[in-house]
């Protein structure tokens, strides 16, 4: 881990226009939460449905995409990543430093937004907020790692990532049975299902068990990280386009 790399990564994500898009997304989530409350009068079922499909299903992956790619994709695109790579630092250390920063920023934004939105939309003694916080944290860790890897491995990480986040996670994973088992959303929802067992009005369901979900998430993160570091070690720096 390298403190300088971390500091540079933090500046890259938070100090640029990208952050306004993140803030806008949080605002949108809050607006939707407010509308949900207005429409449902604060019933937990509506909150849960909205959070699972929109908040966790769509918003969280998109935010993780922006953050996960934001710590490295711009530098690769304009070639300034050479200043970090042409140093006697292990590629794994560089990747880990950037990824840790991305994870922390993502957790703050995603979990913060989800908890806030849940309360605005209507909760049941904080149980929903707690369950969704856990789900979001797990999902955020996984998504951020995946998108970080995509940023290093792909020439247009944003488009690929968006297709995945919006089409796979956002739509199909909610409905198509086969796809569900392969979506981060389902894996992350497993603990929430357990935590919300006692809340009879809410029906949060996950197709995988907690252990299975955890295993799959860890496996995905490990694979993504390994691929990312390998590619980083072989990256030829050139100016984009």
């Amino acid at each position: 881990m390298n403190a300088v790399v971390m500091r540079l990564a933090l500046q890259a994500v938070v100090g640029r226009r990208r952050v306004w898009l993140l803030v806008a997304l949080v605002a949108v989530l809050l607006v939707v939460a407010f509308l949900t409350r207005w429409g449902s009068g604060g019933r937990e079922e509506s909150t849960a449905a909205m959070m699972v499909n929109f908040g966790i299903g769509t918003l969280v992956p998109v935010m993780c995409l922006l953050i996960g790619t934001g710590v490295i994709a711009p530098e690769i695109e304009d070639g300034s990543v050479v200043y970090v790579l042409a140093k006697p630092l292990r590629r794994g250390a560089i990747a880990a430093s950037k990824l840790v920063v991305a994870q922390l920023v993502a957790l703050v934004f995603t979990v913060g937004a989800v908890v806030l939105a849940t309360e605005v939309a209507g909760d049941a003694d904080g149980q929903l907020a707690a369950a969704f916080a856990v789900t979001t944290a797990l999902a955020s860790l996984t998504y951020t790692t995946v998108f970080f890897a995509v940023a290093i491995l792909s020439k247009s990480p944003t488009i690929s990532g968006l297709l995945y986040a919006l089409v796979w996670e956002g739509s199909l994973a909610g409905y198509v049975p086969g796809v569900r088992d392969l979506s981060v959303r389902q894996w992350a929802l497993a603990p929430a299902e357990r935590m919300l067992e006692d809340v009879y009005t809410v029906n949060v369901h996950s197709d995988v068990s907690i252990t299975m979900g955890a295993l799959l998430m860890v496996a995905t993160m490990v694979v993504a990280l390994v691929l990312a570091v390998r590619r980083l070690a072989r990256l030829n720096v050139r100016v984009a386009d």
Partner: protein
Amino acid sequence: MSTADRAAPHGVIHDIGFRHYTGQRLGRRWARRSLLIETLRGAYGLGRPAKSRIMAWLLLGLYVAPALIVVTVAITTKADHLALSYTNYSVALSLLTTLFVAGRAPYAVSRDLRDGVIPLYLSRPLSRLDYVAAKFIGLWLAVTLFLAAPITVLLIGSLLAKMRIGDAVTGWLGGMLMVAILAAVLTGIGLALASFTKRRGLGVAAIVTSLVMAMGISPLVTSVVNTQVSVEAGTYGALIDPYRLVDGLAAGWLGVDPSDAMMAPVNGAGTTVFTLAMLAVVGACLAVLTARFKKVGRV
């Protein structure tokens, strides 16, 4: 250069090449037209490396495919109407259009910003408005062609299925009108958002995110306002989403069936609101674009 010249201490400059251009200069209209055509061609990847071409044509293919299916079904079952109408098609398959616009708008604008070539453009007989107009119209034509393709397939299919010719053609004309308007709205939004960043990736993300969010939120707004305020107020939830906005316009102007009756104007006043909203959006986007390029040079 002969060495005889070199050895002696004097110099001669020969007029070997530089000539003033005295030929015809084609002027501002030509410049505008060329930029427009270049933008249009660039949107479909012509004159660009293979990768951008693949994306554009792949999306076009995916977008037209359902039309072929609809048409085949109609022909084989001898139906008397199409499963997807000329105006509903755009709403049903809006995600693909969103991806297309999100991919092409930054290509038209972000690269120029990043490379700082705007001063180059504007130092030719091309004013700032010309630049904006050329980019806008170029991309608008590209998106119109994209949206029009399946509509035209539907027309051909209707004729082949021996549906009433008059209905088919009027339906198609109406569809084309709405396609042109939808293209204008999407182009405006796409270019306006893309012009805020030099990074193509961020521009793509911003456009896709905005349009998809809008698409997701507008039915929510409608259903909430519908139950809490009134059905008529609920229809204005469509104003947030360009696709439903134009679909509502189609229902109001042409009398066709909207994709969702809860999200289309219920009376003349509603239609006026929808129309004004559409004009406002396009106008605002153009204004933003023009203002954006006022600060010329490195952003």
